[in-house]
């Protein structure tokens, strides 16, 4: 009776040994087709990546590129993303993978393996190693990193917020995770930007690990302990939404200025209602469409892809939020 499961196991193992010979041939056959196939592996299911997918789709349709969009990971981390990456790659016939790596080092080995199989890699939004693919390192194999200059963004947020606050007062930062390259750069940039204003000071940074409830509770406690905080920077969607709910719950709407990152519909509505004062909008759709574009040029024109492509960003404030030109920068599902 128990021999049957054993048999199944043995068969499966045997299959994993024997079948490659056939499969190898099949994969090459697919690769020879004229049509290009790109795959997109997002970092987590949130409006930022949904918007990026829209940009990717639009460009891919325009250029006649086949597109595979993998499952959206439900949490941020390699243990959620790598299995999805591998499963997507197992479909075969992929020429280029556009991925937002969820860890600067854990993704190196799996991506390198795919690269060695002949698949090109572009990292979008986040990167491998330190993000510099021009040096000769173990993580220099991707074609390019396309994403916002988070450090510069942080500096600009600091400048805008300082201007709103009359260049004085205490500030607090609520961010997601010390491990994520993009978000860490925002915090570093913000801190650096604030050093230009002698009467301002960042009194604390909290990590909410992408949990909105935690962001809310941390901010509430920070505000209660330091009633003289005048400005808060929430570094991504979840942080910013948690921060603004904390300010509302503390009854401090208006007294504390909130700067945030990522123009989700929720945050834009909050801006309209005066709960948030400044929103930096990245351009996820543009990042996506640039990735497809450069990938396409690489395959069709053998173009020299720059190691780093940096699209700009926009600022939403109460003044320009209803501006028709700005509407296209709002993230949508």
């Amino acid at each position, binding site marked *: 009776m128990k021999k049957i499961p054993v048999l199944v196991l043995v068969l499966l193992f045997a299959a994993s040994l024997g079948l490659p010979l056939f499969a190898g041939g099949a994969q090459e056959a697919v690769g020879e087709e004229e049509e290009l196939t790109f795959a997109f592996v997002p970092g*987590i*299911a*949130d409006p930022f990546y949904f918007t990026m997918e829209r940009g990717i789709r639009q460009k891919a349709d325009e250029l006649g590129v086949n597109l595979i969009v993998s499952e*959206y990971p*439900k949490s941020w981390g390699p243990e959620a993303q790598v299995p999805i990456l591998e499963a997507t790659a197992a479909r075969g016939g992929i020429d280029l993978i556009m991925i937002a790596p969820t860890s600067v080092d854990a993704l190196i080995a799996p991506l390198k393996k795919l690269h060695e199989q002949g698949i090109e890699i572009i990292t979008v939004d986040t990167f491998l190693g330190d993000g510099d693919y021009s040096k000769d390192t173990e993580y220099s194999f991707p074609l390019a990193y396309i994403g916002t200059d988070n450090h510069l963004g942080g500096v600009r947020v600091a400048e805008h917020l300082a201007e709103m606050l009359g260049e004085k007062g205490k500030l607090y930062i609520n961010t997601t995770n010390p491990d994520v390259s993009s978000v860490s750069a925002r915090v570093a940039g913000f801190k650096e930007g604030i050093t230009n204003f002698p009467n301002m000071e960042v009194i*604390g940074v*909290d*990590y909410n*690990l992408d*949990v*909105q*409830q*935690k962001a*809310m*509770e*941390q901010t*509430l*406690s*920070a505000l*209660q*302990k330091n009633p003289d905080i005048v400005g808060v920077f929430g570094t991504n*969607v*979840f942080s910013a*939404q948690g921060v603004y*709910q904390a300010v*509302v*719950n*503390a009854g401090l709407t208006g007294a504390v200025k909130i700067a945030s990152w990522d123009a989700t519909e*929720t945050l834009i*509505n909050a801006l309209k209602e005066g709960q948030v004062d400044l929103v930096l909008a990245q351009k996820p759709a543009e990042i996506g469409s640039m990735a497809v574009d450069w990938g396409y040029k690489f395959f069709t024109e053998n173009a020299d892809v720059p190691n780093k492509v940096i699209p700009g960003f926009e600022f939403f404030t109460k003044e320009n939020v209803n501006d028709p030109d700005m509407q296209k920068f709002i993230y949508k*599902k």
Partner: protein
Amino acid sequence: MSAEAKNKKPFQVSHQLALLGVLVGLILLFGIIEPAFFIPRVFFDIFAIAGEIGIMALAMTYVITTGGVDLAVGYNLQMSAIVFGITFVNTGNVVLSIIFALIVATLGGMFNGFIVAKTKIPPLVTTLGTMYLFRGISMIIAGTATYSGFPDGFKQFSTFKFFNAIPIQLVYFVVLFFIMDYFYRKGSLGRNLKGMGFNENAVRFSGVKVDRIKFWIYTLLGLLCGFAAMVYLGRLSAAKTSMGDFMNFQVITAVLLGGTSIMGGVGSVRGTFIATLIIGVLHKGFSLLNFSGNIYNFTIGLILIFSLILYTLTEERRKVKTRSRRDQLESQTAATGDSGSGTG
């Protein structure tokens, strides 16, 4: 049974006094370390969590007293919150959304109650399965979307503060506590709950509809999960699929710390009340001291183990005292085969 109850009363009272002592001690401790803790607005934040954990813990006390448990509470709350969110986003009707959310949560509780009452699957396994199920359902409905933008009127449901300090959660919690405590101590329901935890067959043979009680207490717990979901939503103002994480943990800890035995038969709603406040103080205190979730989870785990050990030790002593009386009872009902499961 009544003699039984008299016999354990001294323990219960001293236990509750000890809990009160711990509560006061913790408040003083946090207040000394972080004076901001005593600002009324800050201090009353400890009740914010009582509106969520506490409401569920009150009904959970009933369930655990019968020797059962519900691991699915957190995800039932989450499912209900998501249903509220999606209904609201699609219809814009708050009342309808609340009704739907409460119905879904109640159905979730009923489902648990039905399986526990009608099959012999242990409550632990049943609710372990439905924990997956509820979580899966909410994830399928919501994906990782966040539903928000609820009207201010709805948020008042849990952000309203009397005298600009006392949160409305405290009112819900206290009112519910009086109701639940009354039925737990007076009348036949409480007696039957304890009897079921102590020796289910004995109660069954005495003509009590055990299955029906089981069904309805799990249903009640489901309904209160829905209510807690609404209270939580008002505070957080966004429905998403991480809401239910680690909630069952805190709820069960509140009940066990309050002196209810995990093996059933003995318990106290009053204990749960005080224990919930202790957890609320820890939650707010740790958050103020910037310990975030790390030490909090660790402490809750420690408290859980501590209350288990404390309980088993006192239980052992009590059992020795009451053994003769219990043997009598069992020989009457001839349920000798079940004594093993009765003592765990």
